[in-house]
């Protein structure tokens, strides 16, 4: 599976829908969501690093981390990141190690870009 090229890190429609949930902004929903994503990433990435560092990579952890990131990123409109997570989750589930480190590196890169883009929204 190839990752579709994306010119936009965040899907504007998804962002629109997010804003609709808190139209006046009084609940500071967007900020809380971005914050939650940030927290989630901060919690997950060390787990992922540990799993990769093992002699035999822990595929279960990899799968769980990518599963969670898959849906979080989709919710925020980070469709490219979500798609990559989906891809990695499937590789981990199927035990395909081939190219996995590269994919994971690319994912980490994507995450950094998404975090920047999200920060820009606030």
């Amino acid at each position, binding site marked *: 599976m190839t990752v579709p090229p994306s010119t936009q890190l965040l899907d504007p429609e*998804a962002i629109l*829908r*997010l804003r609709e*949930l*808190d139209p006046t902004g009084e*609940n500071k*929903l967007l900020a*809380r*969501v971005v914050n*939650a*994503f940030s*927290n*989630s990433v901060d919690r997950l990435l060390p787990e992922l690093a540990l799993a990769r560092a093992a002699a035999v990579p822990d595929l279960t952890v990899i799968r*769980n981390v990518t*599963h*969670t990131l*898959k*849906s*979080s990123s*989709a*919710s*925020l409109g980070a469709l490219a990141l979500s798609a990559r997570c*989906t891809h990695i989750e*499937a590789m981990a589930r199927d035990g395909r190690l081939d190219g996995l480190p590269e994919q994971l590196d690319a994912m980490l890169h994507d995450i950094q870009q998404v975090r920047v883009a999200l920060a820009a929204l606030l």
Partner: protein
Amino acid sequence: MPPPGQALDDLQHPPRVLLVDDDEVNLLLTAAALRERGFDVTETNNGSQALDQLSSHAPDVVVLDALMPGLDGFETCSLLRATPGFESLPVLMLTGLDDEASINRAYQAGATDFFVKSSQWSLLEGRLRYLLRSSRTRQELERSKAKLARAQDLARMGSFEWRRGVAHGFQISAEGLRVFGRGPQDRLDFVGVMRMVPVDDRHVFLRVLRDVIARNSVLITDLPLTLPDGRQRVVHIEAEPEFNEQGAVNGYTGILQDVTDRRQAEDRIRQLAHFDALTGLPNRRQLIWRVERAIESARRGGHEVGLLLIDLDRFKVINDTLGHAAGDELLVEVGCRLRSCVRHSDQIMEGMLEGGMSNRSHRGLEAVGRLGGDEFVALLPEVTDERDAERVAQRVLDALREPIFVGGQECFVTASVGIALYPRDGQTMADLLRNSDVAMYAVKSQGRNASAVYSPQLAGHGKQKLELESALHKALERNEIVLHYQPKIDVRGARMVGAEALMRWQRGNTLVPPADFIPLAEETGLIVPLSEWALKEAARQAKLWSLQFGFSDSIAVNLPSRLFERTDLVEHIHQCVSAYGVPHRSIQLEITENNLMKDLQNVIPSLHRLNEVGVEISIDDFGTGYSSLAYLTTLPISEVKVDRTFVRDLGITPQSSAVVTAIIALARALGLRVIAEGVETLRQMEVLHRLGCSLMQGFLFSKPLPADELERWIAQTVLPRKAPWITQADASVDLARGQR
């Protein structure tokens, strides 16, 4: 039930959602989306916390992420389902789009539904609302099922179904098992049910069942059975056929109900409605029913029906003297004896007479019943002729011959039996009853304790009597009753010393003799108003005569003993004499010796009071009764009247003059006046006078006359001293060197 859309609005609160997701972002967003759509959301990011919160938050629905670290969604759901009270809480499992395995696992774990994660919140909302609605419907169903079960339990009702051609196709609900005395876990198949039914009823039921199934018709029947604990119950069963898509019957569903109590109540009601509560015999209604059936059957079969009306003789006397309780006791015993005189059957099979009634089954109608009071009826559904019925009547009379022991003493009871036969004596129950009544009355009038078969002649007689009775009722108000007066003569001075008033009925142009209506008046009670009228009329006449010719003697009025028993008799006489301003002694009362003796104890107080106010008492028909001489010495009486039978034989038989002599001697010793009745010849007058009796009454002097004729008689006969008896009387007075 409200339409589906309304179901949610019926919730007392916004629907409560317990949202469980380890992904903070998703949790946050989903919660925000659902809150915006009116849900009350509790968020938690792991399974064990979710389980902890179940009780405190009492969610209406749980939304559960499938994949979570630690306790995942599947395990959480399984544990939730195992928690009492949450067996049917709707659980929506969130899965990924590409995760078919999760979907299957979700259902296995007991999830109600799954939902692929999406940021299309309205889809999630729609799914949740649908879940809540169906959950609510399900709850209502559960509640209604529970209510039904409770209601069925209370009504001792249950349901069952039978699937045709399926092994164990006969199923009884838990409530139904209870009806059969079994627990909810017990197995009870059709054979098991049949084993509880008595063999005869079982055969009948199975026949009915086969017939019902063959015709695909509805089964409605009552089944008697004996429960394992020995209780006898009646179970009502109703079942309807079930049809498959092709319209063929593939089984039956039905209800069953313990109707034992109702059946017993119905039996009791039927018993009360058709049987006499005192004797337990068929009552009037039941008798009418039986007689009508018997007549119907006789019409078809061309035979005769016998109806015996049995009336106890003088039952009233027993009731009055021994009390009603003893009277009832007596009726019970009589009922019992009468029953033994026929082939009495209490029970009649329902529907016995419809359709396939056998030739002889009308015999089952034979019975003795109680019409009411002391009247019984024996129905003989088939008799060869009247002799048949007479034989039964004789059995009845014989059965009563032995004394009946009630109220601490032996009672001798007799009956009068009237017989009427269908078709000869009547076509209907009413005709037969009326004519047997006529025959029964004929027996009564001829001395009772016998039976008689109806004949039209009897009816003619009865009819006359009925007409007479109704006319007599009106006679008083129409002024048809008059008093005639017969003078009392003292032959020593050949003068009138009083008069006896005698009632006459001027009915149109005919004068009805007293013998024809006085007994009837006594029987019907009309004698009371008649006598009261006579007292008043006599007082009026006494006043008239005192004005016309200085009458100062008394007019004697005959009274039946029942009038003496009335406590207001003295008061009534007082009113009569006061109304016309005559003294009390202008009225004299005559009571026959028999009447007096019959009710002596009840009459004596009246006699004393009457005597005190100056009303004299005369004993009529003296010498004919069985009076003891002892009472004569104590009674406040003034006069005895020698009965006409002794007077008639005077000078013919020596015994008569001996009796008259004795009466005169007795009266003289007691200081009583003696007057002789029925004096018709000079010879009788002469003998009486010679024996010492100078007061007389009879045709020799005058027959009873209307008041104005009596006045004429005095004016034309007595005063001119122009009658043979006056000459003779004068002569005998001379002879006796009399005083006046």
